[in-house]
């Protein structure tokens, strides 16, 4: 009997939009609420990518629908936090999709290096 609702191939989601990938990267190592995701994106891009609330929650909605992220029930510190805030985290499938997208970028970077568009990677001792 075939498994019910089989998970799609992560590759079928690629390429992700930049906004989606940024949000997945922000959630790759921690759970965050919306504003913290924005801050994480700002920090990781040295302030070059600033998402407005409309773009952020549109992206979150699409990621939730695609089962790449999910809401988290846990609160880092319920005393200090606004209880109306929702926290998000990567699903296992989201993790696979993010990894596949990162791999796709890594391949592109390798090609760019080979073509002399990027400086060669410093060799590790």
């Amino acid at each position, binding site marked *: 009997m075939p498994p019910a609702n089989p998970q*799609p191939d992560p590759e079928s989601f690629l390429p992700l939009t930049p906004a989606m990938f940024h949000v997945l990267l922000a959630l790759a190592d921690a759970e965050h*609420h919306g504003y913290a995701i924005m801050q994480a994106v700002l920090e990781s891009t040295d302030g070059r990518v600033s998402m*407005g*609330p*409309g773009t952020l*929650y549109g992206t979150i909605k699409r990621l939730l629908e695609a089962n790449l992220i999910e809401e988290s029930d846990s609160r880092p510190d319920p005393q200090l936090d606004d209880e109306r805030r929702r926290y998000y985290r990567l699903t296992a499938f989201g993790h696979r999709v993010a990894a596949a997208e990162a791999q796709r970028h890594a391949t592109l970077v390798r090609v760019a290096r080979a073509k002399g568009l990027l400086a060669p990677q410093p060799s590790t001792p």
Partner: protein
Amino acid sequence: MPAHQPPSTPPALLLRAFRFALRAFPPVHRRRFATEMEQVFRAQWTYARRQSGTSAALFTLRTAIDLLSSASREHFDSLRTLMNPRKPIPPMPRFVCSLGTAVLITALGAMIALGIALAIPKAYLGECRILLRNTEVPPPSAAAIIATTGVDPFRMQTELEILGSMELARRVADDLKQGPHSHLLPPGTTPEQTAALAADLQRRTSFRQYRNTPVVAIRVQDPSPVLASAIANSLAEQYLALQTERLHATPASRPAILSTAQPFHRPVSPNLPLLVAVGLLAGTVLGLIAMVAVWLHLSRRTP
């Protein structure tokens, strides 16, 4: 004295505007994310305000653009993901959405044209008609034309030049300054101011000769319908007076006023129907392009 502290939350009016803008999103999206979006907006605005007032203003502008673009995208996406996010929406809803976009853009084009039409200052037309008479002996070369049409073209040309002359415009300016509509004219009675008024009257006046007749229409455009007709009537009267003085014309050979100008309260400029028609046409063309674009966008399979 404590140093001035920037506000820790956005002004109430701005928050109200933000909440109002959230209504542009589909209800499902709004119910699910409106509270969070507002929280994020509050936090971001407060952060930007701490930087400077300009940062907060720029952030507000960016947010407005972001809300507008993301709301339209959510509408498209909610339509596409009605049943299944992996499937393109069926042709009929796709067509309805594409057609709706075309209609919306067409209406937008008409509205923009209407806005432009309302922004352009209105000008009203004053028109009166005068009958010119042949009071001088025509040159032999005009004999054939006069025999055919009954009108001396050389004489007509001369009269039209007199009608458009600065001398006549000055007389009209003087006449208007002393008349009941002087309050509608620019103030000042110095020769320079009168000359400026005369030049302005000259610029706004045109003449049209009815084909093969000695009848000429004097047309004046002015922001006031009353003044437009007053100028046209004054021009006709001053022309009659000038010609009577100049030619010592007998009553039978004097030019005559056939009809006086009456205030006409429908503006001749802007041409509202024309502008709206152009807006509709441009909107239709853009709407059709957008219709194709929306159709293609909704047909796309995206996660």
